[in-house]
């Protein structure tokens, strides 16, 4: 059994590699994204966030130039610095939300799918309940009510609603997987349920999960910036791409001070596209029918 799994893994890796070779855009995206993320994380080490977010009225709306490479916003705050910290925040938040929701989703999904029956029934009704809640409105109300909300509470609120999708996907796969012969065989041999789930069912879903997580990641980057844009995301003292874009709500900024919102929009666009292209390539490598190579 162990040997079989190893072989599968190796084959899987080759497939992914081939898939990227066939898809130039995905390859470029991958390189650019890795480079971008490295740059953002390293550069942000050298930026003092408190100094960056200091309001300096006399530098209000400075155009891109010598003093500020990408200009300043309405508070005289450097756009470039905000872009870097903002992108880092967005990525970290998206990553945290993705990991957290995936973890909950996988555990719940596996339990549902593997055991089935009444456990499945009860948990699925709870999931249904979460799905029917208009989560966006709920999040907005929550953010308005909590007087002092931070990045951590933001992540937790978001995660509360976003784990259901993963849970459902994992459940459906686990359901069919748990009917397979190898699971029955394992059961007859007296292996405990926990071991079967962790060591036998879960690895067989891993390829699917990687794709799911990648695409979720792109979505979660969008959710943070989207909410910040609406004014319900990060607090104003935390740099965010969404806040920068939201300055364009003012027609004067939209027309005259393009440097305030345009770079942030481009960064968001770039991240979304890149992650999506990578995700697509990964998905194809998992699904035989869609493969290019």
């Amino acid at each position, binding site marked *: 059994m162990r040997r079989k799994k190893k072989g599968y893994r190796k084959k899987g890796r080759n497939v992914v590699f081939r898939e990227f070779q066939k898809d130039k855009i995905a390859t470029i995206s991958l390189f650019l994204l890795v480079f971008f993320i490295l740059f953002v994380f390293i550069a942000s080490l050298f930026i003092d966030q408190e100094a960056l977010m200091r309001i300096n009225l006399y530098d209000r709306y400075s155009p891109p130039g010598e003093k500020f490479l990408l200009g300043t916003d309405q508070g005289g705050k450097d756009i470039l610095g905000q872009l870097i910290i903002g992108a880092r925040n967005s990525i970290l938040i998206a990553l945290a939300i993705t990991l957290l929701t995936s973890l909950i989703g996988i555990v719940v999904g596996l339990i549902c799918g593997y055991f089935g029956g009444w456990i499945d029934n009860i948990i699925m009704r709870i999931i249904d309940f979460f799905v029917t809640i208009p989560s966006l409105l709920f999040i907005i109300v929550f953010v308005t009510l909590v007087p002092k909300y931070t990045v951590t509470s933001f992540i937790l609120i978001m995660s509360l609603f976003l784990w259901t999708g993963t849970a459902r996907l994992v459940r459906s796969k686990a359901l069919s997987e748990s009917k397979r012969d190898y699971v029955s065989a394992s059961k007859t041999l007296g292996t405990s349920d926990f071991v079967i789930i962790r060591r036998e069912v879960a690895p067989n879903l891993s390829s699917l999960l990687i794709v799911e997580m990648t695409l979720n990641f792109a979505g979660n980057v969008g959710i943070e910036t989207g909410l910040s844009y609406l004014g319900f995301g990060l607090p104003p003292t935390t740099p965010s791409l969404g806040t920068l874009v939201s300055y364009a709500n003012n027609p*004067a900024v939209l027309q005259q001070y393009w440097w305030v919102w345009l770079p942030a929009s481009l960064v968001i666009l770039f991240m979304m596209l890149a992650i999506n292209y990578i995700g697509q390539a990964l998905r194809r490598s998992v699904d035989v029918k869609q493969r290019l190579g």
Partner: protein
Amino acid sequence: MRRLLSLCIVIILMTALTGSNAYSKNVMLPTSVTNEGTPIKGGILKVGIVKDEPFQGVFLAELYENRYDAAIMGYASNSIFEMDGDFLINDEGIAFMDVDQKENKVTITIREGVRWSDGEPLKIEDLILPYEIIAHPDYTGVRYDTEFKNIIGVEEYHEGKTDTISGIQKIDDRTLEIRFKKLSPAIFSGGDGLWTYAAPSHQLKGIPVKKLIESDAVRKNPVTLGPFKFHKIVPGESVQFVKNPYYWKGEPKLDGVFVEVVPSSSVSVAIGSGKYDIVTGFSATKWPEIQKYDNIDILGRSELYYSYLGFKLGKWDPKTREVVTDLNSTPVGDQALRQAMGYALDVEAVCEVLFFNFRQRANSLIPPAFKTYHDASLKGYTYDPEKAKKILDKAGYIDIDGDGFREDPKGNKLEIKFATMAGDTIQDEIAAYYLQNWRDVGLNVTLTNGRPIEVNAFYDKVEADDPDIHVFMAAWGTGTNPSPSGLYGKSDAFNFSRFTSKFLEETIQKIDSPEAFDQSYRAEQFRIWQQYMAEKAPVIPLQFSYEIVPVNKRVKYYSIDYENPVELHEIELLEK
């Protein structure tokens, strides 16, 4: 008239004042404009009021509480007096008055043949009714204040002991006599408790005072004496006025006026596209956005208005209707701390960068337009962070635990809650900047609720003495009577900082005393009051402001000059 402005519960970005020489270094804008062309017959004047929330829509002078309702009501005003350039009542209005200083009484005579917009003639009862509404036991509004009690018999009526106000007497069909406990010069600008509006008694008489605020007569179809009458009100959004054929100065030339609330974010573009003929409440911060349009003229005047930083120093006792000052129960009870907070604010930079010097740092609580009373020698709280730090060090506010924030003299953590109104982005920016200013001198000031508060909720909270508010930033229109009573007296609900003292109360009374008919005595008392307030700092004035009004070239003549305002019924529109 005084109250018309004084009640204006105001966003900092709002309207404004008389030009003259108060701000010599500013960009000076004209106060009136005349455009050439052939006027059209009739037409609808489109007015935009800049506001990000719906308006409240309380259209009765006795009840309304904010300046937007006042601005809308301006087109259908029930004001019975007119004022000259010095804000003194003259004889040119619907009514004129005769002041008898010896007898402490005022005789008001109304013109013959003035009619309400529904054709009913104006009666003396219409002048008495407002007093009976405001002094009524069921009245919950804010106008039953110290000043109002100056009318003889008002307190007995308010307690329900009498059915009428003994000091107010109808002499004949055109004459009303009001007796006061004492008279002061404020009477000439509509102070001392004198009410300058009429209310349609034939419409309101049957409605209990308690129900007035929700009645159709206030919300839907108010009857008016003004040049225009309410035609259609879309709650919170717009008001359609049609001309009032019974207007006493003559039939208006326009067919009507359409007043609409327009969000601050889109107002500049709307002005550029010619959507509005006149825009009021336009923030000076947006001046560069409209400066380039050639379809408008921009008028300006200084405003009888100041924004201020208020400190909560006590509570309002609703039973006795009095201010109870308690300096020990608030973190900002220490005078030195309040002064330091004033010195720490960089108001100058805000005026210069965000308001293009249309606004000036305020040095006192009396706008400079009141030349006789304004104390120009007062320095006020200039930006001086070093001085602020020194004051704090001296008063014992020292950072003991090394977290970058000062602790109070007893060594406890000091967190000051600051309430500010949500407005346009500039508002938020100013609040953020002030927070930063305070942080720079080591004070831990945080926003009440963690964010700016929506305007209506803000004033509800401030009025209710919310324990989460220690400091707040708000504004007053001083109205045409600069007297501090009404805003700083012991029994004034509008005394939001809840600060009072024996000396303060005495000084306020001296300002409005009979001796104050002597100009120099009154000016001296005003000076004492301004200096006392500056020293005690229960309220720190921040900015005097300047109103700018964009007027479309479609309007033939428009003027916002205090001495010579445009007559609404004479406004005409030009052919395109």
